[in-house]
């Protein structure tokens, strides 16, 4: 396939979002509030990891470098990662995680639904498979947001704090960077801003049922799609890449 650098940048953003969030969710295993959640969060991590693994080789083909999934995940420096800040933030409490998961999986649901019509057959194929997965992720998160929002006094307070905590990271998710604008123009991708209204109204409906408020953020994160990351990202990569980096050229 001929090199399509601008589509490559777009798809890389999707892949990196999935990869980094899979890494964060993997941290929950052995740390969840009950065994069922160790399993559920592991399952979601696995799905996201699968999405990233399906997308990375495609990026390597689009950008003409032929890089493998591990070239992307294990041997790339922080400045070359294109994920949003939302997914790289440190693991918080379970309420914070459910807030992040609700937003991210609702976003992914609308994204993949739109990508079913992508002119890139690999992308539409990945979207078709992933759509079923992210529906489940969103339902799972919504279930917990409602339970925690409308549970005890403490859980309400914590769940509200969790929702408030992700607010600054949302504008970036719906920001039209150059790569997504080009990808949308080429019929390959969609403008993130086009998903904003639907996603927000779906999250708002869950929040209403959960007796929670959806506020406006006092600042907003920027730059993930341009490789400008927040503090936790460097540490995440150090941990994720250390063994692979320590054995150059090895296969596993």
């Amino acid at each position, binding site marked *: 396939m001929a090199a399509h650098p601008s589509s490559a940048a777009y798809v890389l953003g999707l892949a990196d979002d999935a990869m980094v969030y899979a*890494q964060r969710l*993997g*941290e929950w*295993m*052995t*740390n*969840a*509030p*009950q*065994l*069922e*959640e*160790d*399993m559920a969060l*592991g*399952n979601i*991590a*696995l799905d996201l*990891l*699968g999405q*990233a*693994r399906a997308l*990375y080789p495609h990026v390597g083909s689009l950008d003409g470098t032929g890089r493998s*999934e*591990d070239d992307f*995940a*294990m041997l790339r420096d922080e400045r070359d990662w294109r994920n949003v800040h939302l997914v790289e933030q440190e693991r918080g*409490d*379970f*309420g914070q995680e459910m807030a992040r998961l609700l937003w991210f999986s609702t976003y992914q649901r609308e994204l993949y639904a739109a990508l079913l019509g992508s002119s890139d057959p690999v992308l539409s194929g990945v979207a078709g498979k992933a759509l079923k997965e992210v529906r489940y992720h969103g339902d799972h998160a919504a279930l917990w947001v*409602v*339970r*925690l929002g*409308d*549970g*005890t006094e*403490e*859980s309400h307070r*914590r769940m509200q704090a969790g929702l408030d905590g992700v607010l600054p990271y949302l504008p970036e998710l719906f920001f039209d960077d150059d790569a997504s604008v080009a990808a949308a123009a080429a019929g390959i991708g969609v403008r993130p801003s086009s998903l904003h209204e639907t996603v927000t109204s779906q999250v708002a409906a869950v929040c209403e049922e959960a007796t929670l408020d959806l506020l406006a953020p006092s600042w907003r994160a920027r730059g993930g799609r341009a490789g400008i990351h927040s503090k936790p990202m460097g540490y995440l990569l150090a*941990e*994720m890449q*250390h*063994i*692979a980096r320590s*054995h150059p*050229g*090895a*296969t*596993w």
Partner: protein
Amino acid sequence: EQVGSDFDALIAADQRIEPRDAMPDEYRQTLIRQIAQHAHSEIIGMQPEGNWITRAPSLRRKAILIAKVQDEAGHGLYLYSAAETLGVDRAELLDRLHEGKQKYSSIFNYPTLTWADCGAIGWLVDGAAIMNQVPLCRCSYGPYARAMIRVCKEESFHQRQGFEILWNLMRGTEAQQAMAQDAADRWWWPALMMFGPPDSGEAAKGGHTAQSMAWGIKRFSNDDLRQKFVDMMVPQAEKLGIVLPDPQLRWNAERGHYDFGPIDWDEFWRVLRGDGACNAERITQRRRAHEEGAWVREAANAHAAKQAAKQKESAA
């Protein structure tokens, strides 16, 4: 009395005891203790490998590892459910684990120092677990036997994955080969200890073996299982190119088995007593996750109660 003789008849006929059946209290208590310990081992056993999820050296390995740790959580769930059929609930069993009143397999008190340890755990630890567990698929208590059938199927899959990790390392760089050999060196003896103290001699401890055998809970002695394990693993080690760390290990044509060197039972008892590398760490992490999750579990209960109340109201 009637209850005892029905039970005895089922046991004698090698039939399954089911939750509705009457059973001697000692049988029930023995099973609760054993199943709980087994369940605890599954969930504590998530930690040594869980520790490597964020650091797995390739995405394929990361995916396999997440799935494996997930399976272990699933095994814990089956087993707690089996224990619950005996009239004790999961929350109570977890409390006993957290308070140190019930044990988990001592093997998980050894540390996972390198990526190769994920291979060694799959190959040796899961291998030993299968050897212990296959006979339990014919255990006299129905729910336990059925849980073990599911568990064993997945465990043998894990064992092959562990073998494959080591296989790749042994065919990799010099550093990778050294890593695999080092992991085998550290895990071999603890894996042999997983079958428990010897059946006889100084290190033997009068356990529940005879009674468990009579009740159809246990089917083979510790030493028999250990020997079967050694006999199975030696050819696999040869295939891998790994040298097992026992100079006395050799084929004994007369016995039709491999002879092997003496096990350091002092170490076994020491680690069992709580003085192992990771005892404190494992239980601390378990407790922390449980405590940090308390508000979530409470909220789930409170929400369910609210929903039930609403339904009742709207039905009225």
